[in-house]
């Protein structure tokens, strides 16, 4: 069986929200002497990318996305060597639900995918004041903040975080990613709250953070 076929099977398991089948696929691949690294790079990652495309076409539900994030987590735990635990080559990020927002599922799923993709995720939880986002980012030397909101009323609270970043002269040092259901329904809200970018789903969060990180690095070049 070639790697693409394994990945196709993995995608089917994600779409079917079948966590047990995904685990079985990983075990079969490992037993067939596909190395753990190849399982992640050639089986899991392509499945996640294609899952993101399906989400774009609005053919996936929150339940499927949630199971996919669990499958990604399971696969990483199974395949990463013990000594790689704690390695986060892409750098630190701060995420949380903005003040007054208590809808944690989307944020938690984003955290799982970002962690799986190699980010050092600092999840501040629900109802996080703008000041705490910024303080934490400065403490851990993160140039990326992800603020989540589900409702329009709470999404507008992200403006305070934007203002705080700008007021401290950090506009070119810290990028603000925003996300949550309301931004998918009203994309113009990203600009209204001062976001530097958004991802339509948890799967795409890695690409968004990489793009924002690259923009900062490009801006910092002499």
């Amino acid at each position: 069986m070639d790697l693409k076929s394994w990945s196709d099977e993995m995608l089917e398991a994600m779409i079917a929200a079948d966590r047990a089948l995904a685990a079985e696929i990983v075990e079969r691949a490992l037993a067939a002497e596909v190395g753990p690294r190849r399982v992640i790079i050639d089986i899991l990652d392509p499945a996640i990318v294609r899952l993101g495309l399906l989400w774009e076409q609005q053919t996936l539900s929150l339940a499927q996305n949630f199971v996919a994030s669990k499958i990604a987590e399971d696969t990483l735990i199974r395949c990463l060597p013990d000594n790689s635990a704690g390695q986060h080559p892409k750098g630190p990020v701060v995420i949380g639900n903005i003040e007054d927002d208590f809808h944690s599922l989307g944020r938690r799923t984003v955290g799982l995918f970002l962690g799986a993709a190699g980010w050092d995720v600092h999840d501040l939880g629900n109802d996080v004041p703008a000041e705490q986002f910024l303080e934490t980012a400065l403490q851990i030397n993160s140039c990326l903040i992800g603020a989540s909101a589900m409702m329009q009323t709470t999404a507008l609270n992200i403006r305070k975080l934007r203002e705080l970043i700008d007021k401290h002269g950090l506009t070119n040092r810290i990028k603000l990613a925003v996300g949550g259901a309301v931004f998918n329904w009203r994309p113009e809200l990203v600009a209204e709250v001062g976001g530097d970018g958004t991802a339509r789903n948890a799967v795409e969060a890695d690409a968004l953070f990489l793009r924002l990180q690259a923009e900062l690095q490009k801006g910092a070049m002499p």
Partner: protein
Amino acid sequence: MNSYQRVMNTLEGQPVDRLPVFAVLGAYGATLTGVDLRTLFSDAAAYVAGQQALQTEYGFDLVLSAFDYSVIAEAFGGEVAWAENQVPNVKRPAARTAAEALRLPLPDIQTTGRLPMILQVTRQLAASYKNQVPIICALPGPCILPSLLIGLEGWMETALFDVDLAQELLAYSGQFLVDWAKALLDAGADCLVVTEGMATAEIAPRGMFVKQFLPHLQEICDRIPGPKVISSTGGHINQILDVLTDLPGLVGVITGSKDDLAETRSLIGPDLTLVGNLDNLTLPGASADQVYDLSLACLRTAASAGPFILANSGADVPQSTPPANLKAMQAAAATVSAEIGCGL
């Protein structure tokens, strides 16, 4: 013809003098009476005063008991998040896991937390509006209800990975829902709106819903007397409607704001009342002309194909919605009523 007669005739497929119009206005009442939202959603007199002010100012074809599910989460032991500009929300659910939730005592509907306040609101609305304006109460769908007890993430985890435990929690919370629905009907509700988030494409795939949740939804609807309308709370619902039309007591469907109204009608057949489908998030920022045009589009698509009520499709209309936008919905209904010859 008063609003009650207009809506009842619509539900029965009988002639009306004009097309009825709903808007989900709870918090909006506070903008008219000047109270803060904490008072509005915890004091029956304040909430009813808001509905009375809305009826006087706009005269929509319903009065609405408080559409605030934090009341239920709180009654089970959860914590409420109060905000200045939105309906109260669940800050912390009562339990962390389904197993823990199953050990919670069922709330006493007549005495626990703000549950009696909602019943009092319903009774007071009935005292003022019975047989004049329909008294509508919203209920969380039985399949999404456990998320109020353990949070959406906890409920997803249980529903997806521990099906037996999920069924236990559904049975446990379902008993509360049946009792609560009956109490609302006893207090004077004319119709119950069941907002079943699990039935939307955004939350659960069709196969999962049909296998794991539909039998429970059918059972609970069967145990709750009175007319019921199923709502998508704004999300897509067309993909599942073909299996919902036979729900016991179902008289109408509130379709999602991004669902195709013509498709919805073809899915539900000619008799059920179709309600919708303006987008809540559009209402605050759009001009009155835009809301009028959007309303016209809904009405012209749906009004001549079967019983139809123009409405927003989500939960509470944002308080920042200009009054002119609410009146534009009614103006559009008047225009199309004339076009299709209502009242002739």
